[in-house]
């Protein structure tokens, strides 16, 4: 049994849960991010001050873009110096030409994803209808 998973040897001395169950789960926890539809985004322009808590949602939005995002869309990021009080900017352009100017401070990351997804779903619907 120990040859199956050498990392669990110590827990086998005092098995709390059956070993077959512990073997089924990976040791590292994988956090599932809520996914966002990014197929229809063509350009993302962001500007933020990393030293401000208000830039949180804008920064998190960047981390929601998938690994291959930069092949499909253009992502521009500008950083504001620490002392400046200029507002954060998050501008998203879609394939149908619509531009979204979102305010990360009031919306929060969930609000941003909701807004983007709302438009993306409409585009998805149209694309499905034209295809099918």
């Amino acid at each position, binding site marked *: 049994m120990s040859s199956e998973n050498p*990392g*669990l040897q*110590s*827990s086998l*001395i*005092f098995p*709390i849960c059956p070993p077959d169950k*512990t073997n089924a789960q990976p*040791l*590292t926890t994988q956090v599932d991010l809520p996914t966002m539809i990014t197929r229809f985004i063509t350009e993302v322009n962001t500007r933020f001050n*990393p*030293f*401000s*808590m208000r*830039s*949180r949602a804008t*920064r*998190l939005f*960047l*981390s929601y*873009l*998938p*690994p291959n*995002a*930069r*092949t499909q869309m253009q*992502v521009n*990021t500008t*950083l504001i*110096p*620490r002392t400046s009080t200029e507002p954060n900017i998050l501008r998203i352009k879609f394939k149908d030409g619509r531009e979204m100017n979102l305010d990360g401070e009031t919306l929060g990351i969930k609000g941003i994803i909701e807004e983007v997804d709302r438009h993306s779903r409409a585009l998805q619907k149209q694309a499905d209808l034209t295809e099918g």
Partner: protein
Amino acid sequence: MPPRLTCSARSSVGRALQRTTASSTGVPTLIIQNAAKTASRQYATAGSPVPLAALRLPDDYIPPTQPPSARRPEQRKAQLLRAYTAMLRSTPLMLFFQHNNLTAVEWAAVRRELRAALAEVPPPVAGPDGSVPVDISSSIEFQVLRTRIFNVACKIVDYFKPEDQAEKSNTYTHDLSKTAYESIREATVDESSTYGQINPLIIGPIAAVTFPSVSPAHLAAVLRTLSPSSPAFPAPTRRKNPGYHDPIAQSGFQKLILVGGRIEGKAFDNDGVKWVGGITGGLDGLRAQLVSLLQNAGLGLTTALEGHSKGLWLALEGRRTQLEEESNGGKKEVDAEKETNV
């Protein structure tokens, strides 16, 4: 009422130990009687004190309520916290990067290019006393941080001072202790403090480049590789370093955003980090600049002080020569008059 069977062996042993130590100092007979009543059965012997050797737990004893962790040591949160506090205390220069969904191959490419760029930095020259400083380029690492734990570690480093807790007897003062936890919970975070400024940086996916000493040359090499900016820190050219322009590495670099740095315990933004990276010649270069500045100031002062006395001397000397000329001229005139008279 029989003694509780559910109480753990550890606590009952602890209680029995307390009693035995107390009995050696205080009134023995009474306490031993008490111990006989309350301590669990197998340890209590009425009349004679409990032998300490029998109460000692074996060295490999594992309490049944706290089985050993199945996690690998480097992934345990306690270990991670200790590693981060040690890193924060010993690392004078850290750069924070936001990494947006880099794939494993991109990470490998980014780290490869970083190592290549650091290897090109010239090794440190020997000082005037003949001692060669340690070459830090092999110890500069680019690691992904667990942000929540790192945040707590930052707070502990800034707000928990073990020497302040020294007067409290019987308290642990290590970073995982209750004392540390309470002191960071009571701490009021000031916006202008280092933690107050670092705190908003540590949002989302964050990776850090850690330097074991402040070396502007190495910092410049890292900046040129990971966040190039055209005039001061240009990216390596395609001819000089083709690996840097490999598409996988490039897509990795595009996803890294330099958000700030922590230098000598203070938070620095992008411009500050670039300023430190732009110091030519490192700390010695700064010293040389300071020395030349002070020398120039001294030179200026001496010339300024000298100027007036020199001017005075020149004026007096000029007047003297003038007077001498006049007196000579007078003589000549007199001679000339004499000649005309004759």
